[in-house]
Structure formats: structure tokens, C-alpha cells
């Protein structure tokens, strides 16, 4: 009897496609969070594969803080055109009017208003009850225990005790009115898997992932890119031109760049594999208080 091993990446792909189809088959009102980053790009690609030759039967949702990199907006436009999917863009209008920004309000408050609250508003407005997110279990300790189908009580609250056991690949997609499910098709992917897959499938990603000479300023040991004139500069501070790239992308004032000469996917992969610091290091919101990701999750942030 010949044994047959499907390789690890094909296994992940097959599992993610199964998850996406299962969530859609639940017959609810699904939406896919699209944050424009590399994980979102992989998730979108998997969704398109899952339903080929049809388009994925759900819209994309971008919670726009208005502080994303300009390159990200350009990439968003391109991918929406290419996929033929509907894109919903939502910004917290109250936050916008109150001029909530990462500088004067601090990253914690800003994230709560412009991301967590904005997301809640958008989900309520669309009455979405299946929400695809690109989070991975390997990203952060508290995510290691996250379900693939993560149950949310009314008001989008995540309650650790209310989570359903997930046996085999059997997902209980039944919910009551007001409840919803966050679905994480990339749960079992690692950062290296993501890059390998982008390489294998030739998935388009935002150019910011590749090294280029960019204008940056040093903030507390982290390189912040001066993507537009809104970034307040201290007296005497002027942007330096450095060869940098990003390992994760979010709001530009909160995304730290790393110095790197990696201009190709191969070089990024080599660098990532040899990396001595995790990708979340570049995310400023993780470390602002102990157990901070867990608190945010309970409040409804991904």
C-alpha cells in the first residue's frame, strides 16, 4: 500500500477552503474583513479559490481609520477590481468628527474608537453574523486558544467560557438572533506559511512589504514612516531616508518599519526565517498594558 502525504501547505490551503465554504454554507450573512495586509491577501486568495469559477458570495469590509498607508489604499482599489467583489468601507464618523488620532489620544483610545467601535458599527449596519478574520493562532499567546469559529454574544463580546468545543473539522454554525461568529480560516498558519504561500501562489501584496528607501523617524526605538504631512514632527526632527520594509501593516503612525535590504519575496522569506524578533514587535498596541490583546478581544477587537 503506498502512503500518500499531502504537503503541509496544501493541507493548510485545503483546511482553510473547507472552513470558508463551511461558514458560507451556514446560510447566514457573511462578510470578510479585509485589512489589505499580507494575511488578508492570503485569505482573499483562498476565498476566491474556494468558490472558483464563481466570485466569493460575500462582500469585503475594510474598517478604515483614515490613517492607512497610501500604498494600501492603492492596493485595495486594485484587488477589488481584480476580484470583482463588493467592498464596504466604514469609518467611525463620530471619531472622525472628534478628530481622534493616534498622537493626541494615545494608541489605546484611538484603537478602541477607530477600530473596535468602527468595526462594531459596520457589522451592526450590515447585520453581518459571519465575519471572516485573518488572525492566526501563532501571532500571540491568547490567540493560541482561539476557536476557528469563535462565538460572539450580542454586542460582539467575546466570552472565553461560551466558546464551543471544536472536534474534528465539524463546526457548529448555529446561532441565535443578535449573536455572531468570527471565523478564522488562517488559524493554523504560521508567518512562514503565509510567506511561502504568497510565493507559491504569486499573490499580489502591498509594496511596503519590500525594502525601499523611505522617509522615517525614530520613535522610541521604532522606525515610523512619514507617509503624509499629518505625522507631527518634533522640533528639530526631520525624516531620515532609510532602507526599510514592514512586516505587518496597519495605521502608518502605529506600524514600525524594520531596516532591511530584502527587496524580493525570497529575501523576505530568508529574513523571516532567520528573524530573531516576532512580527508583532512592530505593532505598538500589543504591549501598552499587560494581557492587552486579551482585553481588546473581550471588547470586540479581533
Amino acid at each position, binding site marked *: *500500500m*503506498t*502512503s*500518500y*502525504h*499531502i*504537503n*503541509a501547505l*496544501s*493541507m*493548510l*490551503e*485545503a*483546511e482553510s*477552503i*473547507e472552513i470558508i*465554504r463551511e461558514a*458560507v*454554507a451556514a446560510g447566514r450573512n457573511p462578510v470578510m474583513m479585509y485589512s489589505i495586509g499580507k494575511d488578508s491577501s492570503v485569505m482573499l486568495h483562498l476565498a*476566491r*479559490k*474556494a*468558490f*472558483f*469559477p*464563481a466570485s466569493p458570495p460575500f462582500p469585503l469590509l475594510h474598517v478604515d481609520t483614515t490613517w492607512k498607508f497610501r500604498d494600501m489604499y492603492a492596493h485595495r482599489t486594485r484587488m477589488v477590481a481584480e476580484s470583482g467583489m463588493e467592498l464596504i468601507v466604514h469609518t467611525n464618523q463620530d471619531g472622525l468628527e472628534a478628530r481622534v488620532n493616534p498622537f493626541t489620544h494615545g494608541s489605546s483610545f484611538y484603537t478602541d474608537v477607530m477600530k473596535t467601535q468602527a468595526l462594531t458599527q459596520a457589522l451592526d449596519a450590515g447585520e453581518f453574523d459571519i465575519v471572516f478574520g485573518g488572525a492566526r*493562532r*501563532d501571532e500571540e*499567546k*491568547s490567540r*493560541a*486558544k482561539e476557536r476557528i469559529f469563535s462565538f460572539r454574544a450580542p454586542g460582539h463580546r467575546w466570552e472565553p467560557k461560551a466558546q*464551543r*468545543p471544536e*472536534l*474534528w*473539522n*465539524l463546526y*457548529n454554525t*448555529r*446561532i*441565535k438572533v443578535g449573536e455572531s461568529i468570527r471565523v478564522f480560516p488562517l488559524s*493554523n498558519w*504560521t508567518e512562514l*506559511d503565509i510567506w511561502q504561500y504568497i510565493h*507559491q501562489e504569486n499573490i499580489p501584496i502591498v509594496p511596503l512589504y519590500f525594502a525601499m528607501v523611505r522617509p522615517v523617524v525614530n520613535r522610541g526605538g521604532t522606525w515610523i514612516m512619514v507617509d503624509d504631512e499629518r505625522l507631527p514632527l518634533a522640533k528639530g526632527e526631520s525624516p531620515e531616508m532609510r532602507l526599510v520594509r514592514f512586516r505587518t501593516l496597519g495605521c502608518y503612525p502605529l506600524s514600525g518599519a524594520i531596516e532591511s535590504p530584502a527587496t524580493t519575496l*525570497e*529575501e523576505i*522569506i*530568508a529574513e523571516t*526565517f*532567520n*528573524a*530573531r*524578533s*516576532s512580527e508583532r*514587535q512592530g505593532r505598538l498596541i500589543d504591549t501598552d498594558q*499587560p*494581557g492587552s490583546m*486579551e482585553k481588546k478581544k473581550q471588547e470586540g477587537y479581533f
Partner: protein
Amino acid sequence: MMASSTTDITAFLATQRDKTTLRFITCGSVDDGKSTLIGRLLHESKCIFDDQLQALEKDSKQYGTQGEKIDFALLVDGLQAEREQGITIDVAYRFFSTDKRKLIVADTPGHEQYTRNMATGASTAELAVILVDARKGVLTQTRRHSRIVAMMGVRHVVLAINKMDLVEFDQAVFERIDAEYRVFSTELGFASIHSIPLSALEGDNIVTHSARMSWYDGPPVIEYLNSVDTAPMSERRALRMPVQWVNRPDQHFRGFCGRIADGRVRAGDPVRVLPSGVLAHVKDIVVWGGAVERAAVGESVTLTLAEEVDVSRGDVIVAADAPPEVADQFECRLLWMSEQPLLPGRPYLLKLHNKEVTATISEIKYCEDINSGAHLAAKILALNEIAVVNLSLSQNVVFEPYAQSRTLGGFILIDKLSLETVGAGMIEFALRRAANIHWQALEINQQVRAAAKHQAARCVWFTGLSGAGKSTIANLLEKRLHAAGKHTYLLDGDNVRHGLNRDLGFTEADRVENIRRVAEVAKLMVDAGLIVLVSFISPYRSERRLARQLFAEGEFVEVFVDAALEVCERRDTKGLYAKARRGELKNFTGIDSAYEVPEAPEIHLLTGTADSVACVNAMMEQLAIR
């Protein structure tokens, strides 16, 4: 490994691409050192980054139990509330890799009340690492954990005998525990058990052989996980694909999406749709941007079928010749996972692969003591209890026993009111077999009969002059087909002329009738699913055409056994040509009766020049029978 140059990176990507996945579960009682071991494995396989290590050092001082030393257990303790209580209370998944594999670890707690977490973690695991404290040996908990993983279908065990540093690395301690465990676990039927003595805390036998336990000559933990063979999925098994989603963008395309649970599929394969039993053929295996020739177990695919048949979510597309059973009553193992007890007679929702039906427990046969395996009588089932029950469903479902297929044999129960997942079950066997229902629903036709014989029915019609070699080749071909496991029958002058066609002579009219009868008989046999070899001179085109018209496109294979008249006459094995020449035989083909050469035979054999074995080889090729 430093990958710097392009070739290094290409090589690196190639090794990454070839990696396979191993999923395993760790179990042990509180404080056996499970978290420490996992933290170690992550650390040693270089899956921890510098910033995480720094955070760990900080955490170690604040929450750790190791004083100034790094407490690896903190790497894997997750939620804040749990961290403060100092315990882990759920299933967490961790990722690391060896040079050949990507490993996914389900980390589950050792508490009495968390059987359900362990079952959850074990449901997708191929292997279990069971921790034992060397000072304590095999405990009640060890037995319980082993029973749970065995019940969930885990077939390979690593018995990690930890804290060897606290027993002076004593070989006798290790051997005693190993022996005790093997005796106890015989009844659980694991396919492999491997014991490793280690100190998770101090790193002995994790990556390299421990110098302090030179008496142990087996592999360290990481090496073992890198190489253990965990009965890999087989692609030789029959196709099983539960239909998850029907993809129907417009009326021109109807694809059936699902993940292949077993076996493999190729374009053109005959398949059956269960539970209806309808037969169809795979047209295309559709993937992003095109189609592929084949797909196998583990892959998520979209199939289109050549025939317009009814298929919906919850159906299972299976190999036509090896369908699984269909039933609505089962005996199964059930693990109860809810605070609300299970009540016999109460309707629950049951989800088995992609099918949801209503289920009631008609009888709790007995409850199983998870520590001892003893059978206990029970009226209800409480949280974390395991029982063997009879289950009755609102409709038939396609299934296989859990021991054979986790996908077709594992199910969950959902409470109809709370909608929570309340039970996990494993089908053992069907109580009232509906196995044959789908056979009645479908027409027994030629394809069904042929499929039962693992072949495509054919009429292979040999025509040619007497002595051209028809019978020799037909006989040889039949032997070869038989050896290949095919079901055949050979019709020739000998077995037809003496019985069925005894009343016929050699006039032109009789020759026509002879062929007509032979063709009709061949048709009946093809309908029975056989490969029929017909060896008759059949000199007239019109009769051969008549015969051909009785069969479906592609079913009739005309073989022109071509040898020149002089050659046949020279061979004259039966002395017939001589007789005819002498005028003792009337209407002999080639002498005083015409042979009309076939215009477009499927196969043209020149027996005058090629030997018969070569001819038969060529035919086996052409008939695509391997």
C-alpha cells in the same frame, strides 16, 4: 540556518515545500511538566523570537516558579485569568517545525473535569505525548488520558517519562514505568508506544541524547516526532467526498465542492452519489483557473459531473464500486460535554460530515468508567461522562464506522434550544441496516453490473479469414484478461454452432442469421457487464455493421485479424482449405465465397507478420486494460 544567497533560498523553499504536517496532543496531570515540555520544544526548535524570550524572562521573574531562571511553562500559558490562577484550562494550539515536518500541538489541561478538552484536542491528532512524572509513575490520570486518546482514534503514543532529574536518572525507574504502561495499555490497541526518559526542565533528551542517561539509546523527543510513521492517509482507499457546497454561479456550471475524506478521484471516474445511489461520472476536477487530472485525500476540490444528477450539501460522492453504508440507527460511543445532562428520548441536532439531522438517544446501554473502563448502568449522562448508546435519526445518513473514518464516523450533538455543542460521538456500527436501500433506488443496469466487476463491458469482435489466427489471439487475450481479474466470455464457432446455431448451415442466409444470433447473445452478455470476445469469420460488412449497431458507442471493438489468403491456406490447420479446393466444402470464405475487408476496424492485426503475443500485448494497450 542562514539562507542568504538565492540558491540557498531556493533550496530552503524546496525543503519547506516538502514538509508534511504532524498533529499531536500532549496530556498529563497538573504539574507533570507539560507546559515546560512544550515551551522547551518551541524554544529548541527556534520558534521563539528574541523579543518573546525577553518578555519571557520578564514574566519568569514576575509569575514564574523557577526563581531567576527562565520558566518555559510561561511561554504557553495563555489567558490572563488562567495565568493568575496558575493553571491552563482550555485547548491551545502551538506550532513549530522540525527539518521534515510542521508540527501542530494541541495543548490540553490535566484536570479531572476537562475530559472534553482532551477529546477535542485528540480528535484531530495522530499521536499523543502522554506525560508521566517519574516519581509518581502511571497514575489514574495517565490511564484516563490514554483511554480518551484511544477512544478518539489516536493510534500512536509517546510516553514521556519526565523529571528524570528527580530520580537520579535511574534506568530501573524508567523501565518499571514503561513496562507498567505497556501492560495497562494493551487493551487500548495502540499501534505504537515509544517511551522516552527526559527532563523537560533541564533539557535532557529533548533535542540531543542526554549524557546523563546514556543507557537510553532511542531517539530524543524532537527526533522521534520528526520521523515517527503515523499510519499516513492512504490514497488507495475508495473515494469519499462529503459535499459541502454546491457551486452554481449560472445555469452552465454546477460544481460540487468538498474536502476529500478518503481515496482519490480522477476525471472520468465512475462515482455514486449517496444516499440516493445514483451513478455518474466525474467530468472535471475544477481548480483555480482550470482543471486538474486527479486529486486525493485531504484536498478541497470542486467536481463537475458528466450527468445531470441531483446532488446537495450533505450527500457524499463515493467510488461507484465501493459505496459506504447508509443507515438511520446506530450504536455509538458518546462523550457528553454539557452541564445539562443528556436525556434519552430528547431530540438533539446531529451534525455528521456536512449533514444535519435530528437525533434522539433511544437507549443508554452503559456508561464507561474512564479510569478503569468498567461498564456502569446509567439513566442519564452528565458532563464529561462517556457512554455507549443507541442513536436513532430522523433520516438516513451516509456513514462509516469511526475506526475506519473519522470524517464519516464522528459527529457532534447540538442542543436545539441553547444551540451549544453538547456531545461528541463516534459511530461503531449501524443497528438497522439500510445498506441496501440505495440499491433499490437505482436501476440495475449494465454500468452497475460492470462496475461490480471493476470493468467496462465490451464486445471485442474478431473478424478474418479461416486460419488467420482469430481463435489463437482471442484465446490468448481471454487468458490475459482473466489474469487481470476481468470477467470474460469467448463466443466462437465451436460453442455456438453445436448448440444455439445447430440448425444453421453455410448458405448466405444462414451465415447472416448465424451472425445475428451471435451478435444478440454478445449484446446480452455485455449487458450483464462482461467483456465478450466474439471470434467469427463474419465475412460481410453489413452483418458486422448490424452487430455494431446493437452496442453503445465505444462498446464494440472490431478487430480485423488480417493474414493473406495464401498464408492462411498454407497454414490450413484444420485442412479446410484443401477440402474446399477439392470442392468438398461449399461456400468457403476466400475460395468460393467473398470476404469483405473491414473499412475502419478499431484494431487491425497483421498476423501474417507479427506474433500473437505481440498482438495481444498491443490489444491490452488499446483496450486500456492494465
